[in-house]
């Protein structure tokens, strides 16, 4: 299949390894990968903080980049949730009927990375090898908006060499919430403290998730506490293979 990547602004800027891992997994599975270079941001930060006017034009921009895609793969659950939950309404707000139709036609072809593997390709074993003790955090948008369910866990269970340890309070928000982490820093910190405690209680070497925004926040807390526990995007675990090591 011809897969178009939407890497998202913060993955592009801050977590390029995640994008590279997505490329590696998809190519290893025999797909052709494209990266439309005009892509930037889905508009989530603006939209969720109340800056609707700034977010609206990004809908058309996204459609422009991906209208001909066979499938769009996004390694970020919150960005996919943003598009699925809000793009149709945003296009309607712009009173642009053509855009509305295009959004409607495009969205069923947009997938979060793990969702693409499990639901679109029907895969669980993607031939990965990752000999580490890992715990999985279910990001809120993946869990509730995208209803990823145990999809990511099934992918992880099929990874060779991995030791999976369950995270207590799996469905609890980590406290990131975009600008929430800054606007309500104290509450966000208190929520993070619970999450990092849960991660440390697992004795895992790494905590993984389908969203680098949660991971950046969790990693920030773990590093401040000098714990040595790493965070790693699910794609990077699935990209690991025995040949590469």
């Amino acid at each position, binding site marked *: 299949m011809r897969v178009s990547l939407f890497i998202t602004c913060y993955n592009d800027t801050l977590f390029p390894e995640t994008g590279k891992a997505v490329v590696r997994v998809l190519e290893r599975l025999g797909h052709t990968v494209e990266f439309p270079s005009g892509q930037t941001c889905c508009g989530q930060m603006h939209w969720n903080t109340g800056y609707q006017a700034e977010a609206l034009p990004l809908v058309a921009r996204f459609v422009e980049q991906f209208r001909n895609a066979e499938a769009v793969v996004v390694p970020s659950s919150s960005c996919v949730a943003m598009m699925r939950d809000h793009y149709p309404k945003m296009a309607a707000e712009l009173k642009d009927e053509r855009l509305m139709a295009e959004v409607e036609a495009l969205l069923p072809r947009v997938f979060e990375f793990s969702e693409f593997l499990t639901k679109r390709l029907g895969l669980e074993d993607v031939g990965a090898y990752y000999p580490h003790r890992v715990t999985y955090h279910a990001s809120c948008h993946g869990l509730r908006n995208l209803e990823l369910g145990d999809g990511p866990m099934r992918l992880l269970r099929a990874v060779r060499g991995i030791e999976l340890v369950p995270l207590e309070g799996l469905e*609890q928000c980590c406290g990131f919430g975009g600008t929430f982490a800054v606007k309500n820093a*104290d509450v966000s910190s208190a929520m993070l403290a619970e999450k990092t405690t849960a991660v440390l209680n697992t004795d895992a070497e790494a905590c993984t998730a389908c969203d680098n925004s949660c991971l950046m926040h969790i990693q920030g807390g773990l590093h401040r506490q000098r714990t040595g526990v790493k965070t790693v995007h699910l794609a990077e675990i699935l990209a690991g293979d025995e040949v590469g090591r």
Partner: protein
Amino acid sequence: MSGVLDPRTSPPFPIVAKTMLGDSQLRKNVRHATDVIQTKRARVVGEMPDWQALREAGRQIRSHTMENLDFYLEELERNCTRAGGVVHWARDAEEARQIVVALVKESGSDEVIKIKSMTTEEIHLNPALEAAGIHPYETDLAELIIQLGEDWPSHIVVPALHKNRQQIREIFQKKMNLPELGERPQDLADAARMFLREKFLRVKTGLSGANFLIAETGGVCIIESEGNGRMCLTLPETLITVAGIDKVLPRYQDLEVVLQLVPRSATGERMNPYNSIWTGVNAKDGPRNFHVVLMDNARTEILADEEARQTLNCVRCGACQNACPVYRQTGGHAYGSVYAGPIGAILTPQLQEMHHAQSLPYASSLCGACYEVCPVKINIPEVLIHLRNKVVEQKGVSAEALAMKMMGMVFMSERRFRAAQRMGRMAEVPLVRKDGQGVGWIGWLPGMLGGWTQVRDLQEMPKETFRDWWEKRGKDGK
């Protein structure tokens, strides 16, 4: 505590939240109580095979009612009047208070026994009664604790959720003059019973809220766990009910749906121990005079806002509060309003002048746990975002708005986006410190961003963006 829960004067959420986060006893109490309720709720919801269908039915009933509210309110008034009730209309809190005070005086009493009611809390009725020389007695156990403790409710179903048994005992010892009071739940319940029984038998005027108003019959429905409400509904000569106009249900039959949804969501019970429905007056039984005060208090404005209208569907079960990770950290008082948690975060800024809106719609990580548990499927995150947009539009120019505008422009052009990525890498250089492994970390950020580095480090930006890597890869033919 007094004064804090007035949304017109309460400090912004992050400020009060910070104080609350320092109260470890309160946080322990809130955590424990919400854990217990959530576990019970999960169990009784889990045993319902048609729970999602029931939620959808609840949502439809409530949405249909809101879309035809004027019709159902008129029907309610007609049927209530026909049954011997008297209907009063109050535009706002002030008017509602005046009507109630006048009605109590008319009843010839300078005391009232009260059923737990968030609506009367919303309009600060007790202080108004006291100012008019009328003593209100709360009869719900939790409300009694709040009243005697000179405190404010912190949860819409369990108002004294932030207090533990020991603290309650101390309040009772002091205020009921019972220095020898034991500490078993039974001892506390007995003390409250003795204290209240005398009031039930003496006071001739009762005051209630309403869980639901039934348009088809003109009836009022109250559901409760303790039976105190039933005493207040049957013993007094005069009964006054204060209800928001959003409490209407079209048909008697609709109770079938909501009376399954509410108790399971609220307290994890299959049904409420006491379900009371009364319609007007009856010569043989119950109060001789019945009044219902239908209060608007900004509800028609919420109704007019298509995107926020679903706020009015709320059946006040409190499930969203128990599920909310923010509420669970801070407890209810941080919200500066008797409506706390997710529902408070959307309801309060709309009920009051937008004063409190500056902070409440932002008091959420948008995790969606509230939406997931809401028995009538109110999409609280969606309403929060809608209200945030209103705040942004009202606030106009600010440092944040400028930054957001600039970022918005950056995202509209690939060239500008790449330039911003490069600039970010340059700007962070003075802030980066290398750790033992040679990885760069930022432990301090200036200004607005300082909240981030309060407890978190930020890894330095990688030298190469994904798109740079992708382009190079293309050139090298991999």
